[in-house]
């Protein structure tokens, strides 16, 4: 497999950016709050190293299978990161807020149906069936991630559940990148991998650059601390607890009445 200087530059920059971000997660102890996101970043470091060695010492076939196996893992982890962000936002007490459970289920179903429908419509011109599978899988995951990001924004605003500072930053980065990726994967699906290989490569470089900007954004935002909360006075805490106890039964009593 031939790599251009630009390929190598983007590859090295991506590796370095992930390494810095992972150090930020460790030094600032963000991995405690975001274990899945940290695992996702760590997997990208491992992936880059593994692919580099396979590319240098392995066969073309082994590179192909390693690339796409790790690509699937990457997509799975991206979806898991989305789950982690949803979990931080919509599980204020460790349980999914009861008013959004149904909406979440519908959102998930709608996301998959729309993404699957569009993926079925895509007919990228390819030489090998595997190329079509790869292009379609990438397209499917980019549609899913973008829809889930927008769904998260809508749900958070409508339900009145605010994003915490770092959750918002991670979600925004991933969401904007997913949106750009959706357009790029549409381009990949349209141009395919037969006649327009140059266009395919340019689009891939653009995607990698967009992702680098996203990682840089995460580095800065996750290095910064979230705004300090004020300390709740003990007297107010006691009164709030009493208030909460009485509030808990209010709605139940109203609901019971027929």
């Amino acid at each position, binding site marked *: 497999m031939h790599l251009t200087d630009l390929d190598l530059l983007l590859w090295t920059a991506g590796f370095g950016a992930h390494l810095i971000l992972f150090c930020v997660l460790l030094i600032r102890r963000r991995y405690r709050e975001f274990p899945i996101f940290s695992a996702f970043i760590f997997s990208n470091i491992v992936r880059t190293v593994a692919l580099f060695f396979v590319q240098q010492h392995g066969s073309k076939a082994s590179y192909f299978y390693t690339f796409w196996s790790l690509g699937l893992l990457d997509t799975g982890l991206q979806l898991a990161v989305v789950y982690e962000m949803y979990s931080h936002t919509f599980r*204020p*007490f460790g349980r999914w*807020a*009861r*008013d959004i459970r149904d909406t979440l289920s519908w959102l998930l179903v709608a996301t998959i149906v*729309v993404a699957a*429908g*569009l993926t079925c*419509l*895509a*007919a990228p011109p390819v030489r090998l069936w595997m190329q079509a599978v790869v292009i379609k899988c990438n397209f499917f995951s980019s*549609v899913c991630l*973008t*829809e889930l*990001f*927008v769904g998260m*924004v*809508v749900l*958070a*605003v*409508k*339900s*009145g*559940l*605010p*994003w915490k500072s770092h959750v918002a930053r991670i979600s925004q980065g991933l*969401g904007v990148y997913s*949106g750009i990726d*959706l*357009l790029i994967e*549409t381009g990949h*699906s*349209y141009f395919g991998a037969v006649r327009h290989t140059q266009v395919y490569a340019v689009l891939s470089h653009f995607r990698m650059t967009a992702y680098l900007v996203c990682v840089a954004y995460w580095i800065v935002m996750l290095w910064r601390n979230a705004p300090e*909360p*004020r300390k*709740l006075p003990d007297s*107010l*805490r006691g*009164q*709030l*607890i009493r*208030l*909460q106890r*009485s*509030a*808990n*039964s*209010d*709605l139940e*009593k*109203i*609901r*019971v*009445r*027929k």
Partner: protein
Amino acid sequence: MVNTRTVVYLFSVATLVTALLVIAAHYLRRARRSSRNDWEKLLKRLIAVDRSSIAEVALDIIDESGQQRRDEGSATLDAAQIWKLVGGLDGLEVLAANCAVLIDLAFYVQQWYPEALLVTEQMRLSAREIQWHVERLRGAKKTGKLESAFPMYAQRAVATYYLMTRRILALYELGNHVMLADLERTL
């Protein structure tokens, strides 16, 4: 040569992207506006309601402490009386709009004291429940069943609103006496 399937594909993706962009922009703007709220702006968004009417409808099924009433004098209001006191569907819409503001008010307190989440979450759920009742009434209006549906849903919504405003006032009473005076005037 671009075939029909490709045209449909590109058109569908363009439609999806446009829809997602519009939706995201709209809700991000709303989120930004909420986070920039200050006390004065929030109060200006509240729509004045007849507090005595709200109390009358709510206290028909609950007592002052929020307990469900089971005495003989409870649940005496009929559909027409509730309709008049609440101000019909428009009146419920006002309560629903005020609920959104009340969530923001509670959130405003939470910005100072994140540990107040317990209370604000209860407020949020109450407000969402009122919105649900209003949605049901909208549906009943469309199907011509508003008259029969109104007492059941409207009275519950009003009772929930009543309890929620009391909780908000209690929350502010604990935290900020100056703000409480403003809030009592508006609610």
